[in-house]
């Protein structure tokens, strides 16, 4: 890959030295990949389903990787695939699965006119950007990376990374420690009370008042979760109620409100 693109670049550099034109093959790649990238990005923004959005974003990242490779950045193309699509997007998907993949986004407008305003704003912004960038760069000569990549792209990057940008490289370590520490803080729970063994649990159960299983939720129940109380024909909960699960955040919603926890999300 890298030799091909480097060769293309060298050819471009020799034939069209300092000319803004790119080679035909590169133009073909661009005109195939760029529409796909834009379509995928738009589809991501307008897809109802978060998982679809994530997968469309992966498509976008792949398109960008191709464009990096086309522009003499084989190292970045590889890193893009390995880090972005391989690690970051997998993390996104992982979290999406964790927090409930069925939570499709409602596309109902809550702020009146917000969508139109946002679209108008975005249109104005993109016109401004393209106009400004176009006026500056359409005639700008392209130096090409043939000289900079003479020893190979990776070595060229290493040269800069370990000389001019070495301090930024060192500073990044603070960022990585912070990230690890942050994930620990928000996800890791220290065991404050000793874990109850199975033997201990069964001992407690038989020593307690209710050794038999709890009544099952039954035909009147709206939920069949284990912590849902069985309902009597008049709608009241049968005694004894099942024990409330430790750490369940919506226990109140489940035990008291048969309409279920889904309705309690509004938080108002």
């Amino acid at each position, binding site marked *: 890959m890298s030799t091909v693109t480097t060769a293309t670049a060298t050819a471009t550099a020799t034939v069209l030295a300092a000319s803004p034109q790119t080679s035909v093959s590169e133009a073909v790649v661009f005109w195939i990949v760029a529409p796909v990238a834009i379509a995928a990005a738009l589809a991501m923004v307008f897809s109802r389903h978060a998982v679809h959005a994530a997968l469309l974003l992966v498509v976008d990242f792949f398109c960008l990787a191709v464009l990096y490779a086309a522009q003499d950045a084989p190292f970045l193309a590889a890193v893009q695939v390995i880090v972005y699509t391989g690690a970051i997007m997998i993390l996104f998907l992982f979290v999406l699965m964790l927090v409930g993949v069925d939570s499709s986004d409602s596309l109902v407008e809550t702020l009146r006119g917000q969508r139109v305003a946002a679209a108008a704003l975005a249109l104005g912004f993109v016109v401004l950007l393209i106009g400004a960038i176009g006026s500056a760069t359409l005639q700008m000569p392209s130096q090409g990376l043939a000289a900079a990549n003479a020893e190979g792209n990776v070595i060229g990057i290493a040269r800069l990374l370990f000389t*001019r940008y070495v301090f930024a490289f060192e500073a990044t370590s*603070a960022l990585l420690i*912070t990230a690890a*520490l942050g994930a620990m803080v928000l996800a890791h729970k220290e065991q404050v009370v000793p874990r109850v063994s199975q033997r201990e649990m069964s001992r407690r159960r038989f020593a307690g008042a209710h050794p038999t299983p709890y009544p099952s939720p039954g035909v009147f129940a709206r939920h069949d979760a284990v912590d849902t109380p069985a309902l009597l024909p008049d709608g009241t909960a049968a005694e004894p109620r099942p024990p409330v699960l430790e750490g369940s955040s919506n226990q109140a919603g489940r035990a008291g409100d048969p309409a279920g926890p889904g309705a309690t999300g509004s938080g108002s």
Partner: protein
Amino acid sequence: MTPTDIPAPSIAYGPLWPMIAVFLAAAIGVLVEAFVPARRRRPVHLVVALAGLTGGLVAVALVARNHHHPTLIAERAVAVDGPTLFIQGTLLLLGIAAVLLLGERSLDSTGGTFVAAAAVVPGSRGERQLTASSTMQTEVFPLAMFALGGMLLFPASNNLLLMFVALEILSLPLYLLAGLARRRRLLSQEAAVKYFLLGAFSSAFFLYGIAMLYGYAGSVDLGAIFTATGTVGSNDTLLYLGIALLSVGLLFKIGAAPFQNWTPDVYQGSPTPVTALMASGTKVAAFGALLRVFYVAFGPVRWDWRPLMWGVAILTMGVGAVLAITQTDVKRMLAYSSIAHAGFILTGVVALNRSGLSGSLFYLLAYGFSTLGAFAIVTLVRDADGEATHLSQWRGLGRRSPALAGIFALFLLAFAGIPLTSGFTSKFAVFSAAISSGATGLVVVGLIASAVAAFFYVRVIVLMFFEAPAPDGPTIAVPSVLTYGAIALAFAVTVVLGVIPGPLFTLADKAALFVR
């Protein structure tokens, strides 16, 4: 040529020690978290953090003594000059006060302002058990130290890439810290999400600005951008785009209008010691970076960006002063006041001369301590639900606790810019600098905004001293020596800079020279 002959970079670690000390303390804090038993962690963390900050302060003093000539070190990535050292010294002092507040735990009967275990869901039975216990999430200390390290690096960066990395180093821990309040955890978590999403959004703009400037100058070194701005080229639009987009990122961090929306929510939701750190430290660091970028790189094109900054400054002062009046919550009120102050400091930036720079530096130090002290006092006024931040609960506070209310009134007077407080001297400094650079209109707006804001501060003082306290009003918690220390430091700085501002003025003036 083989890859092995990459020349070793010269870094000159000496002047980097202020940052290294803080990062080292942060790293040791992580190790403490791993190896010290839970009961003893908090005091150990306190010692480590304070040692790191004090070490950094000593390092700043040594560097200032030994390096009379400003230099660029670490392959031109870090600038060691007057403003860097002044701001780093300010940040380290503020950091010491903020760490004292973080370590306070005798306020709440259950201990600390930080959550016992962030991973436990709020409202669950496990959480109630933990809240009653005296545990706390001690990771806040290393996180705060990493944030402080990023703050030290942010205004010292001489290339935009390092500045971006520093911006993230200071932001990521703050996003996390914002969500770790012990009481009102939903509010705190929402503040964290809001801060994070908007912060990431603004840093994307910052980065796009960097890309444009790189396209314009062919380098991200501030000196190289300065050189490029001296030449007339066809691609100047890239420069203007770059300045605009970069400013979005920086103005977001300082909380200037129209990017101020996050400030009140995040300040209100975060644990108050973290709010104190954000309101003082982040503001100082971000202004340091803003000053460096605009003074070092964009000086030659000042006629192009100054009208824009005029507008931002006027809008910021107006929004901050007017919206502060409508607030009923002390923390939100202080947040809007911090927005207004961002506008006042921006007048110093717009001045773009040596007195503007020294005035801004002075203002940052003075304001940083007043705001930190004000938030420290907010932690002390409590009722059964934690901090009592509604203004109506502060009614008659002066009769219950005259000393505390008196100190708070002093901070408010400093915000209002009453003579004999640090606020007056600093406002005088930036406004006179702005007038000397011809920005008289801006100063008029600034004076009007100050008058509007002063009305509100005085109203709070009247509320505290001349109205009868409510019978079920909040109590004043008796803190440990830690909070007293932080308040005393803030109080002393506010008074001393009001009465004898001369020495610090001289220091700021001597420091006010950027290296390029």
